[in-house]
């Protein structure tokens, strides 16, 4: 059987030598999953850091998608091949904490007296477990609803007033529907479902969304979840819902080419939607069930983790890099390049951001939605180690729903699948 050198439980003191490069600087690796324009921006940030000081060099290495990166981490974690910094998606948080390969961020925050107040509270909330911050938030996004203002006008609707509740959306979608255009659409992706549940204050799993202990059961098939499925089902039955699959680019292309009038997207996709659409694009909060008050959104995206068991110098380098990342200037650039939120809200005061916002006032909406979020267990997001599998269950449930299956039934099936995964995970964890 393959052995993993040093299984990460108690090697706190046998720390290795720090890797030093030709120029005498401590060199650390930073594994990330940023491709496309994200990578472009990230590379320039890393370059900025390397030039900003003389002691450390960070090497950013792309390691594939979030899943692929995590797979590699699971195999290499705790060995000498492991990097100092790694980017892991939000739903990997629970796994990372349990893995034992990582050094909680809180340790450095405390040692260094770093002021966490400067960072966006609603983002930190997600990554804070038992009051401790385990990883440094990095690329964060939330869902928003985009709509075609021109289509609104054509349908005789007020383009400045987007629908807010499920019922509103259903109505509006019906009005917007034409031969060529669907009223509403949503990527078949578990994240959006989680958001629509959370904004109603609904939980995903028990044990306070897994934050007060290991979750043992999925609860998303309760009333809130059912609301979401009914909402989608109603439009789908009415033919006003367009299904554009599981691919981000497909649904975006559908919107930009006028095949659908409203859809849910990530805040990170707003800029592109505006740029590539030949019509005016409106941005709105995500809808919520009529009978409840809007709670807000959960943060999505990824955060940065630090390895345990590496040389102190290397950890120091990693920490310095993370601090650099959170500066307003860097965050401002990051926000503009990618559309992800700035984790440091001061960034929004930077001139370059202001200029941009003047040009794209829609951005304001995304930030407002985040800042309007009411902190709660629901909007903090669930913590389970089998999240990826659970999301698949949701995708399957949604697909079955669109094929005409009963909302409650598909939702229960998804919960059942999730339960089994949770059960196995708990069983195999000593």
């Amino acid at each position, binding site marked *: 059987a*393959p052995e993993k050198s040093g299984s990460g439980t108690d090697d706190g003191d046998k720390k290795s030598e720090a890797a030093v490069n030709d120029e005498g600087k401590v060199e650390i690796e930073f594994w990330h999953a940023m491709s496309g324009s994200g990578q472009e921006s990230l590379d320039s940030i890393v370059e900025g850091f390397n030039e900003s000081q003389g002691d450390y060099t960070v090497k950013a290495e792309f390691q594939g998608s979030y899943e692929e990166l995590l797979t590699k981490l699971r195999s290499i974690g705790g060995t000498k*091949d492991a990097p100092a910094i790694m980017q892991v998606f939000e739903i990997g948080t629970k796994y990372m904490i349990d893995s034992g390969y990582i050094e909680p961020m809180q340790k450095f925050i405390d040692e260094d007296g770093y002021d966490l107040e400067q960072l966006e509270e609603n983002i930190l909330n997600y990554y804070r477990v038992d009051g401790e911050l385990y990883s440094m938030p990095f690329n964060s996004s939330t869902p928003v609803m985009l709509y075609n203002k021109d289509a609104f006008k054509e349908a005789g609707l007020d383009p400045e007033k987007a629908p807010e509740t499920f019922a509103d959306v259903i109505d509006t979608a019906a009005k917007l529907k034409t031969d060529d255009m669907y009223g509403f659409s949503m990527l078949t992706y578990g994240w959006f479902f989680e958001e629509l549940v959370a904004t109603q204050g609904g939980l995903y799993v028990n044990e306070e969304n897994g934050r007060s202990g290991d979750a043992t059961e999925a609860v998303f098939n309760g009333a809130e979840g059912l609301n979401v499925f009914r909402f989608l089902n109603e439009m789908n039955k009415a033919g006003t819902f367009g299904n554009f699959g599981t691919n981000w680019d497909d649904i975006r292309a559908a919107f930009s080419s006028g095949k659908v009038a409203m859809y849910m997207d990530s805040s990170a*996709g707003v800029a592109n939607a505006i740029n590539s659409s030949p019509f005016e694009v409106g941005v709105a909060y995500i809808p919520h069930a009529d009978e409840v008050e809007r709670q807000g959104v959960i943060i999505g995206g990824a955060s940065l983790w630090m390895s345990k068991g590496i040389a102190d110098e290397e950890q120091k380098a990693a920490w310095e890099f993370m601090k650099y990342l959170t500066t307003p200037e860097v965050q401002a650039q990051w926000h503009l390049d990618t559309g992800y939120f700035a984790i440091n809200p001061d960034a929004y005061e930077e001139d370059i951001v202001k200029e941009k916002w003047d040009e794209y006032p829609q951005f304001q909406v995304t930030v407002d939605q985040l800042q309007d979020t009411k902190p709660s267990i629901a909007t903090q997001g669930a913590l389970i180690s089998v999240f990826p599998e659970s999301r698949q269950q949701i995708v399957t449930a949604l697909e079955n729903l669109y094929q005409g299956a009963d909302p409650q039934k598909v939702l229960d099936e998804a919960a059942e699948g999730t339960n089994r995964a949770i059960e196995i995970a708990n069983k195999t964890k000593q």
Partner: protein
Amino acid sequence: MTMSVPKKITFYTMLTVSAVILFFPIVYAFMISFMTGPEILQGKFFPESFHLDNYIRVFDRLPLLNYLLNSFIVSAGVMLGQLVVCSLAAYAFVFIPFRGSNFVFFLFISTMMIPWEATMIPNFFIIQNLNWLNTYQGLTLPFFALAFGTFLLRQHFKTIPKELHEASQVAGLGPFRFFLKVVLPVSKTSLVTLGAYGFLTTWNMYLWPLLVTTNNSVRTVQIGLKQLQSQEVATDWGVVMAGVIVVIIPTLLLLFLGQKQLQKGLTQGALK
């Protein structure tokens, strides 16, 4: 030999229609690689102008030349390794009849049935334990033995007239020299086919190179292609397609050259 004119016309028509249909996706990708974002969304076929912006951006963004070179080294390495290992094995199966030959052959074939995805993780541990992460041998060695290649060559070796084997034996050729001097040259077609196959599949590999490399030193070009596509942030299709074109041009080129070589081999050495 000769063909009547109407027959010729029929053939050319069929040839052309098939060629157009078959080649369309590649042309399409080529066209898109020159388009801007909005153009693509409008679903056009011809770009407004053939500007090279997308290509410039591709090369700007990634050390693509470096990736291409790595891809080339890895693919050529795998190709050569496969040719050597597979032809040796196929030769034994066809020309050295021994007891249990069928069994061993089937054992080989059975390796084809094991989905690579299922054994990738254990293999990754092997490479890691050998300390071969970020090395060319880690990228190439696991692919040297190829049941498919052995099978392909075996099928071809079987069509070599037995008289050739006999004539060489009488001429005093040992098995290894018969292999070198007759079997390999006579099987040029299959070797080129297998070579092309090995090269191209290696060139096109993504998951394994990604897994066993952690930095750019030996990374291949398919990883670069993946880096052009985004997950949550919108993908710039023009750039991606430009990447696609850059990545497939070397393989297409190789295929064209190989094709030429094949043609020559075919006309020269056809077995009767």
